[in-house]
């Protein structure tokens, strides 16, 4: 466990940890948006999606 934390907190590895966090977070944002839009596409087509994106 010690070795793991050592590697994880090396200054040169922090960007990679940050990148992994960013990728997970942003893919979450994308997935939420994509699923919401998929529902809207069934109901109202692209116009409904355009309306939601403007909010």
């Amino acid at each position: 466990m010690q070795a793991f934390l050592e590697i994880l907190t090396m200054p040169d590895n922090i960007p990679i940890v940050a990148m992994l966090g960013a990728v997970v977070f942003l893919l979450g944002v994308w997935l939420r948006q994509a699923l919401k839009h998929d529902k809207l596409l069934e109901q109202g087509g692209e116009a409904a999606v355009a309306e939601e994106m403007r909010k």
Partner: protein
Amino acid sequence: MSDATKPPVATAEPSDGLTTWPHLVRVEFLVALAAMLVLTVWSIVLDAPLEEAANPNRTPDPSKAPWYFLGLQELLVYFDPWIAGVVVPLLIIVGLMAIPYLDRNPAGNGYFTLRQRPFAIATFLFGFLGLWIIPIVIGVFCRGPGWNWYWPWESWDVAKTVDLRNVNLTDLLGIRDATAATWLGGLLLAGWFGLGGVFWLWQRKSLALLQLGAARYAIVAFLWLSMAGIVVKMALRLALNVKYVWVSPWFSV
């Protein structure tokens, strides 16, 4: 008097009428401010590494490329340097550039969706996450001295012995003669990419393939099968210690 002689009318970009100043500039300013804050704090708290002076007589073990190339260095375990270091990067660059010309699906232009573009999204995430990000993570956290596998919690002080019983695919199939091995290995490789042709024969009437056309489909099939082929070769190596799928007098894959 035809329209060709009149100067073209500039068409306005679509707009909601929101003025750039202040709305867009405000967003940009706030994001830039936050980013500069993060960067400054980060630069005060964490120091960039500076190891001992360059010494041509002492190679560090493991000797790692910069982290953004560790994905390619991880490939060196499974492929020869000219494939992992030259062919794959070139394929990645050319493949990425070709995406807009290979994707004929008009849906999803300018908004997030999953239902309208499942193949494109699945392929891209497979490549980006599976074949780029994950190998980088492995290269950073799971590779120690001798490029052996060390779990992140394992200390690098413990030496590991390397299993060197590598065989070729044709050896596994019982072929001993070199010429026969070259022919069979080449056939297997051609067969793998031939799967693209089989798929075309099966689905050539489908809307997606009709939209693509033969040339685009051939390129998509080649790139997709190459990506999948990398994973297959990795699996063969890990499970059966296969070193080469095809051995020839000129080069081996």
